């Protein structure tokens, strides 16, 4: 412990986060024991299938579960030395859109159809800068539109979301999220609704803006290509749990979890023969109301049972130093399987 230990806490630190929803069908355990951290200027990629808990994690950070009376959140979320799970609604509201902002998946449905794009950006700015008059806020919004690469920003300011093209709409959404210089930016599948050529532009834009603003970025996606492009660290989620995490380079070059292998195997590659089939992860994601016993992945894992019955009865812990994995297979065996069975087919 050094004298400067007060700064020891990372910019964003999430400890043992649990999110559950009480529904008529039972309790949905959306996130279980999620723990990770992120520094300013860094990008964390969270990957996983639909229902793996990646979006719920980010909504919990922003406190957007708070309006849902059936949501229960426990654990700790530290943002810049402030704990958010135990904070009041008003404290979290003041951080939302200010210190932490979010970009959503489908910008057409995420923008209000009845208000102009400009007025929505102005609103986001003024709620965190109440003293600013309309004219200044308007200039700020137009400036943001210009910075995210929207041509003729003065004119587009008065347009509605449906008058924008898909890519321009996402740019406007990004302008709205960045209008208050957020220190933490969460992008929830920001390119999913866009066509491929536009996807690359938007990713470039996010990277450039991150360098400019020095924000911490959480990139939620099921597209490993996006993660490979942008992320410093990667978190792989399955059934509401973090099952693998580590530096992006390690996770891509030495993936440890059979599920991560499956994700890599299901990525289309241009350098592969067309007649080769993709290798998707067989089976479907588990129900979060009734998770399988033991390792949640065992019903779909081709290696379950190699190590006795532990996969069926015991939840694997997340273990490792920098590159962590939650799997019952011994490390040597995993390396062997990856080298001999998985890698040749990727």
């Amino acid at each position, binding site marked *: 412990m050094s004298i400067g230990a007060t700064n020891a806490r990372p910019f964003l630190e999430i400890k043992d986060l649990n999110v559950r929803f009480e529904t008529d069908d039972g309790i949905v355990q959306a996130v279980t024991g999620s723990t990770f951290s992120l520094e300013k200027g860094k990008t964390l990629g969270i990957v996983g299938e639909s229902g793996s808990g990646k979006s719920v994690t980010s909504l919990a950070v922003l406190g957007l579960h708070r309006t849902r009376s059936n949501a229960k959140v426990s654990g700790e979320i530290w943002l810049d030395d402030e704990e958010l799970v135990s904070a009041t609604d008003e404290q979290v509201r003041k951080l*939302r859109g*200010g210190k932490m*902002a979010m970009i*959503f998946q489908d910008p057409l*449905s995420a923008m209000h*159809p009845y208000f102009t794009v400009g007025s929505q950006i102005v609103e986001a700015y003024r*709620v965190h800068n109440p003293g600013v008059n309309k004219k200044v806020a308007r200039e700020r919004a137009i400036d943001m539109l210009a910075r995210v690469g929207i041509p003729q920003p003065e004119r587009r300011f008065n347009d*509605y979301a449906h008058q924008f093209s898909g890519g321009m709409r996402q740019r406007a959404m990004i302008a709205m999220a960045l209008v208050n210089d957020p220190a933490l930016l969460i992008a929830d599948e920001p390119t999913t609704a866009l066509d491929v050529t536009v996807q690359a532009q938007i990713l470039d834009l996010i990277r450039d803006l991150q360098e400019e603003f020095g924000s911490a970025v959480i990139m939620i996606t099921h597209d490993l290509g996006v993660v490979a492009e942008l992320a410093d660290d990667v978190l792989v989620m399955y059934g509401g749990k973090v099952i693998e995490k580590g530096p992006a380079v390690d996770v891509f070059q030495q993936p440890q979890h059979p599920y991560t292998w499956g994700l890599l195997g299901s990525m289309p590659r241009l350098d592969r023969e067309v007649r080769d089939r993709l290798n998707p992860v067989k089976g479907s994601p588990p129900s979060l109301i009734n998770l399988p016993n033991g390792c949640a992945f065992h019903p779909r894992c081709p290696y379950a049972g190699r190590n006795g019955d532990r996969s069926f009865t015991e939840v694997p812990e997340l273990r490792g130093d920098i590159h962590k994995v939650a799997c019952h297979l011994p490390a040597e065996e995993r390396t062997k399987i990856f080298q001999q069975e998985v890698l040749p087919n990727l």
Partner: protein
Amino acid sequence: MLAYIVRRVINAIITLLVVTAVTFGIFFAIPKATGSDPALLYIGKQSDPAAIEGIRQKMGFDDPIYVQYGKFLKGIVAGRDYANGPDVTHCPAPCLGYSFATEQEVTPLLLEDIPVTLSLALGAAVLWLIMGISFGVISALRRGSFVDRAAMTTALAGVSLPVYFTGLLSSAIFVYWLGWLPQGQYVPFLENPADWFVNLILPWITLAFLFAATYARLTRANMLETLGEDYVRTARAKGLTERVVIGKHALRSGLTPIVTVFGLDLGALLGGAVLTETVFNLRGLGYQALTAIRQNDLPIILGVTLIAAFFIVFANLIVDLVYGWIDPRVRLA
């Protein structure tokens, strides 16, 4: 925008023309088909044939139906003269003919009724909008709570109970039993605003109860849908206060469908709230229509139908124009 308005107005005029043609056709062709003579209805059964023939000449009942319809339309636009030789009666525009029963001009009769119906409909509309929307919003925000359940149960009662039940029951309680309100009788607003108000309280509440129920359920459903929209989540993610999120972002789209329904409901009511007017003895268009139907007074029935159609078409027009203004996506379509 101008092209949009012009298109809508032309549409409205065509609709009204069709409505007049069909109503006129029904009301004046059916007596012919059934063999009853409209001229007889003016005079009474024991008149002499010459007088009947005179009326027939004067009213033009012997003309082909399209000629009669043409004259009827001309009467509305420019007024018309009923002539039987030297005996000429001028009916100024907009002329809707003469009542069979009283031989009075239809237009002034109906014009007298309009303020009654207007007072009833507008007052009730204000009430049901306030009640329906506020209870609908509260129910949506407190979904599943006691308030929600109570409001929705009351609303179910509201849509299920007919006006002649709630109206008579409330009259029995507040007028005859408790004696808090006078026995209903319409007093013109300009004559005595206070009496006008007091006499309309029960009819307003009775009529509003029926509509407030529908509006509360509609508002609740719309609000619940809107609250689940992505843009409401975005509004929260921007850090807006819950008051702005609900009061501005959610309400703006949650209430938009209400505008359509409200326009049509109000338009329909302006053509006469038959049950409410009858129960509370208000001599409005609905009451007039009911009386006319009982007496087989075709010109009045035709007149009321036209006015009702006019209000509905007009309300539709207004709704379309307002919609173009509140929903930017419609404006461009």
